[in-house]
Structures are given as C-alpha cells and as structure tokens.
C-alpha cells in the first residue's frame, strides 16, 4: 500500500515523513525520525516505555498510528530538557537514583511530566496510580515515587 505523507510537530519542530498506514507512531519515531529515546518494551500498550504526548495527552506511541500524528503536536523525551538544562523531573530522577537500568526512564519521565502538569501536588497514591502504566522492573518504584514527589515540590517552588 502506498505510503502516507504526514506533516506534524515533534518537540516544537515541524516534521514531515512518509509512513505506511499500519506503521505505529513508535516505529516512525524510532526508525524513520531516529528519535530512539522513546523505547519499545512490548508494542502492546502494556509497559509504557514508549510514553509520548499527542497534543498534550499522554499515550503509548505503540498504540498510535504514524498517520494519526498528522497536524498534531508530539512530545517525546528528547524535548523534555530545556536545551542544556535538565527538567526538574530529570534532575530529581538522578538525585534519587530513581533509575537502575534506565530503559523505562524516558517513558516514566514523560508520564511524570504529564502528571505534574495536570496535578502539581499529587498524593503518593495518585502518583502510583498515574504511573501504573509504566513498568519498571528494577527499582520497586520506591525511589521513583520519591523522585516524583521531590520534583513536584521543586516545580511548586518549595525548597527541597
């Protein structure tokens, strides 16, 4: 089947690509656009390693078609830091040792950013439920939850 021409925005930059109608956004990001920060853990929407935002909504890129990005704004892990400055969530993940292998980390950071943008003061339970779609097999989530709590406090302007 003929490929489809897609015009979209990725991390604020205009982007064009051709993709097969059945190709996932994850596949387009990783294989076509070479944005490999978004990870594939399952391709069935169960692990959250491919978390991105589409017009600000948190989604699994493996469950979105590449063609669906047309006219939308995509946010990936590569767009989280502000140039040379890490986002507070990234900084807190480092300070709290909230990653071990690091494969789930991009997805968790994108999901956390989405959480804190909609809920600047989440409870521990709200954090755990919001991030329940992001599997981490290394940490047991303890340090991730603490990093998110600390990042939220920092983003609210509270001293750590």
């Amino acid at each position, binding site marked *: 089947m003929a490929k489809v021409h897609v015009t979209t925005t990725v991390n604020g930059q205009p982007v064009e690509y051709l993709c*097969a109608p*059945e190709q996932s956004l994850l596949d387009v990001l*990783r294989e076509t656009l*070479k*944005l*490999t*920060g*978004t*990870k*594939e*853990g*399952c*391709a*069935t929407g*169960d*692990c959250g*390693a491919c978390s991105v935002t589409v017009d600000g909504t948190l989604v699994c890129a493996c469950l979105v078609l590449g063609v669906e990005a047309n006219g939308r704004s995509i946010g*990936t*892990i*590569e767009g*989280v*830091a502000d140039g040379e400055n*890490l986002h507070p969530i*990234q900084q807190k*993940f*480092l*300070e*709290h*040792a909230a*990653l*071990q*292998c*690091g*494969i*789930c*980390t*991009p997805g968790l*950071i994108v999901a956390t950013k989405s959480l804190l943008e909609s809920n600047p003061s989440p409870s*521990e*339970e709200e*954090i*755990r*439920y919001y*991030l*329940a*779609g*992001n*599997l*981490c*097999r*290394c*940490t*047991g*989530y*303890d*340090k*991730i*939850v603490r990093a998110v709590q600390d990042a939220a406090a920092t983003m609210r302007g509270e001293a750590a």
Partner: protein
Amino acid sequence: MSEVRNFRAIGQRVIRPDGVDKVTGRANFGADFSLPGMLYGRVLRSPHAHARIVSIDTKRAAKMPGVHAIVTGADFPGVQSEEITGGEGAGNYKDLAVNVMARDKALYHGHAVAAVAAASIAEAEAALAAIKVKYEKLPAVMDVDTAMADDAALIEEDLYTAGLPEKPTKPSNIAMVMELKRGDVEVGFRDADVVVEETYRTPTVHQGYIEPHACLATINQGGQATVWCCTQGHFDVRSSTSKVLAMNVADIRVIPSEIGGGFGGKTTVYIEPVAVLLSKKSGRPVKMTMTREEVFRASGPASATKCVIKIGAKKDGTLTAMTAWLAYEAGAFRGSSLAPGAMCIFAPYKVDHFLIRGFDVLVNKPKVAAYRAPGAPQSMYACESLLDELARKLDLDPIDLRLKNAVEEGSQAAYGPKFNAIGFRECLEAAKRHPNYALPLGPNEGRGVAAGFWFNAGMQSSAEIHINENGTVTVIEGNPDIGGSRASMALMAAEELGVPYDRVRVQIADTESAGYTNVTGGSRVTFATGMAVIHAARDIVGQCKQRAAATWGIDADMVDWQDGHAVPKPGVNADVKPLSLADIAGNAARTGGPLLGRASLNARGAGPGFAVNFADVRVDPDTGKLDVLRYTAIQDVGKAIHPSYVEGQLQGGAAQGIGWALNEEYVYDANGVMENAGFLDYRVPVASDLPMIDTQLVEVPNPSHPYGVRGVGETPIVAPLAVIANAAHSATGVRIRELPLSPPRVLAALEG
C-alpha cells in the same frame, strides 16, 4: 584483609556518570543502533511444544520482495558437546546451538526453526508466513511429575541421568541427580520433638526485563564480525557466538549497548548468532529485536519447581534434621539452576543432619536462564515456608526460631566451606528491633518473615586506568552497567587515587578494548571488577610515587600518597612541594611516558549475602486479593559503595519477589502452548501494587575485599516469596503451598 579506614568517596550518594544520557533519551540501548544498508531479521518459531520437524520449505519465501537471506538449522554447523563455564547458568554449547535454531525437533512453543533477513520488518514477517514447515506433533511434557514418570514421553531420546553411581539402563527426562548430605538424618529425626513435612510448588516465571533482546550484526567477506547487543556479558556473547557458528573468537567483536535489565536473562544468546549468519548470507548488516511475545516464549525463564521439605526440631526450636527433595524444570535442555538452589536451601542454618536430593528435569518449555540468585528463591521459599509452619507449631517467634539456629562466622555451611565474617545474626536482630516489626495489625492482616541467602560470585575481571594529561581519570572495564555500576567503579577509583569523584570517567569497553571480564551477574561486579579497579588504581599510585621520587631525586619507597598527592615520607630530608595527580600527569612525558594502570584478577572470597525481610499483607476475603501494606528488607551488604543504588537493589529484588509470590506465572494450555505471553496477562508489579519498600543496610565487612564489599544484587529476591506466603498464612489462617498466591487460588483456599 579489610582495612579500617575513613572513606572520602565511598558511601557518597553521587549522581551516576551515565545518568544524564539515561534521563534525556540519549543512552543507546540494544535496539537503538543502525547501519547503512541494514536489513531486519525475524524468526519463525514453533507453534508446537514438542514436534518433529519433517521438512522446511523456504523456496517461496526466498522469492518474496525485500528478502535477502533465509537460514534454518541446516545452515548452522554441528557443535560438539562442551560445558559452558563462566556464565551464571548451567548448560552445554551443543544444546545452546540447538536452542538458537532447532534442528530435527522443535522442543517448546517458541523454539526458533527459521529466520529471514529482509529490507523491512513487514517484508521479513511476510516471508516468515510463506515458509512451510511440516511438523509431526509429539506429546508435550509440561511439568516435573509428568516428566519424571516411568512412561513419560522422552524429550531427548538418548538422555541418561548423570550423577548416579551407574549409568541407568534406559533414558529418561531426568538429566541429572545430585545429593548433598551431612550426618544421618534418621538419627536427627529420631532426636526431634516435632517433625514437619510439606510439598511446595513454584511456577515458571520470567525475569521480565523491560528491554527485549536486540542486536545488530555485520560480518565482512574476510569473516570478521561485529555485534552490537544488549547483554550482561559481551565476552560470553563472543564465546557463545563463536561456538554456535564455529568461528574464531578473534574474528568476533562484541560491543555492548546500554542494557535495559537482565536479572540473569541476558547472560546467554538467542538472536546474536542468527544475525551474524543472516549477515553472512546476505552480505548486509542485520538488526534483530525480539518482540515481547518472543521474549516470553523463547528466552530463558526461571525453573518451575516441586520441593518436598522435612524438618525435625526440639521443642526449643533447635533443628535436628532437615531433608529436601527438589525437582527443577530445566526447560527443553539440561541445566537448570538446581545446584545453587540445593546449595543455598539450608545455608543459613546450623544442623548436624541433612540430606538434599535434587533432580534436573527436562520439560517442553524454553531452556531456563539465570534469574537473580538462580535457583535459590524456589528452594528457599519452600524451606522458609516450612520453618514458619514449624514456628507456629512450636509457638515461637519466627525470628527467634531462626536466631536459635543461625549460622555465624566459623559455621560450616551446608554447601561445604566454613563461613567467614557474615551478618545473618545481625540481620535477624535488626529485624527484631525494627519499629515496623512492632506495628499493630488490623483485621484480615498478617505479618510474614523469612530469610534469604546467596553465595555471591567472584570470577574474572580486568580494569585499566588512564590518567589524562590534566589529571582526570578514565577507568576502562568490561561489565555492562545494569544498575549504576559506573558510579561504584568511579567512587572506588576516586577513593583509591584521592581525587574528587567528578574527575573520574568510566568507559565500558568492547571485547577488543577491555581485558577479559566475566558477566555482569552473580552479584560480582562491585566486588570483583571493583577490586580490579582498586588494584589498577594502586598500580597508578605506585607509578606516581616513582615519578615523584625521580623528580625529587629520592627513593620511591620514601614517597607517600596522601589525598591525591605524592608527598615525601616524614623525616625525608627533601625540600619539595607535594605533587598532585595533575602535576605528575602533566609532567609524564619527562618522567617515563603516559600513566597507565592495569589489573586483571580472578576474584576469590566473595562474601555471602544474608537477608531478613518481613512484610504485612491484607487479604480481601471477598476476592482473595492480597495487598502488601508494608515491606521491610534488611540485608548484610558488607560495605555500601553507593548506598542509594544498594537500597535500590533491595527494593527491586523485593518487588520482583512479590510479583513471583502474588501474580507471575507462565500459563500453558493442554498442548503446551503459552497463553499469557505479554505484560497484560503476565502481570509484573506496577507502581500501584506496591508500598514504599523500607530498607536497612547492615554492614559486616567482607574480609576478602579491601573495602569490605560483598555482592548485594541477588540476595534481595530470595526471601520475598516466603515472606509473602507466610504473611498470607497469618492474614488468612490457611497455608497455601503453591505460588502464585493469585486471587482465585487464595479465594479457593478461603472457601476451603
């Protein structure tokens, strides 16, 4: 010997050197590499658990668009039987080769039977669908009871049980029998006031690393291959690939990517030799990634087990005799984690009479791989559960029962050696004192306690240290960083050299750039490779003293190394200024050339790791669902180099063990087809399933390491299975002796 010293760098919670790349998406994992002209490889897998492969017809597939190469078992060389050493699991290269690509039989649902390299994944998958395989189905043997029965269908027709005094008269599915014993258990049970005996079962579970296996391989016309892959041991990928493809190791360069979890599961090869062979046939680089379904169906899970334990004790809790009958599923090829499971089971306890008999059993499931303390969680779940049942019978606190019998320095371990300094008793006492252990419990809530043990490994490691011209430090080593080990290596180099942590960089080099190094596994990296880094740093210090001595015109043994500076020893009659590492490095050209420190070793004296965990659970009487309310992990870690990452090991191991206890299992249908090969139905713990996991680090220094380090990564998964099972018993009043404690199973038990 361990030194009493005040550490400057060790114990600091620094930011890991690879951290920024990992929080920004720049870190390159297994599937993140590409090369010009690259093809995509995909594998055709058996839909049957056990079948003879009558024929494979690839003619139509070969002509399909985009297809460049197809391989089947016939394209692989024959491989001689040879035991695999140096890895974390047991196995044989001949079996490994057949596991990588089936020859005359498919031995499990998911066994590779052919592979295609094509210009796109879609074209490769279309070609797979066009390959015609004719199978003759054979009976699937799916558990140890069936496999060990006299009339069992044979998975390997000429398998004769090893480990018996005489070769058996007929083949069976029992690959090996082992026995460990001390004293006379008949005497021990005669002396007992109480004897308990029960049977426990654990299911097949998967390590569940989030990154599927991935590699990129290219081989030139001269036969020189380069492989990028995610692995716990690139030297093992090299040796395994060389055996499977009958290549010279010198012609294979393996470059490790960042690794997205492994837990033992990435200590062997599945797709790497296939990618090299497809590259050879196509003349193009070939990238292969496993899907999640393939990871479940065709990489190595952990053994399902059946364990029968019998314990005799005096009224005061003194153990008089213990026996264990252990049957471990190996999967379709011999070599389960039975031996370490058998060696660990009674290791924490002093008992004069014990007998352990173990069976390594073939079933039509994927060949098991190492999974964090391989073998120990299963056997110790059984033993630690029965000890809990014994404590109830004797009306003893479960910690007191263990304290009564705990091994200590000088005790003869059940598996042989005498223990050096160990911290089991300290962990038990810490648990007893822990405020969480005194918290009141509500209705439907229960508390469980259990111990965990793992030997920890040493093995071979190499390290180089280069001092750059400005005095900064580059450490080069060969262990993929699976959980922050770069930070540990940098801290140890900084400590030994007396320089700030931020002046040290750590490079994990490929098989041609780092000295030979065994796997990232066995909880060995911080211990053994750390020791190599310390020795390499001492090599640098020695050279710096010589350079300073030459500069000052005094003997090298009159120079000390203090706080990153060469200084003359007290009383040396020389009016000189101390020389920093930067001073010496800047002047290196005039004092003998670049500063290069090296060490290679086979580390001995890995200190064993003991843990005591306890947890509170609440059961929902209507659904049978168990919720973990609190979890406390206490472990002797020797010396925590980076305490945050050490705590993380305890927390992560607890979470995996909780998953094993509560949810995780391979579900097969009657034909041996795996029904839950995805994260939706194979449910690992998610953030909302778990509480915070409290940790307490006990530090009893390992006398065999300069800083007292003992491995910490594997012990944490051992205790949780029984912790949860024991807590569930407390909460429900019923004992369930089979994992997982999933809601239907708990509900059925509640309804009696």
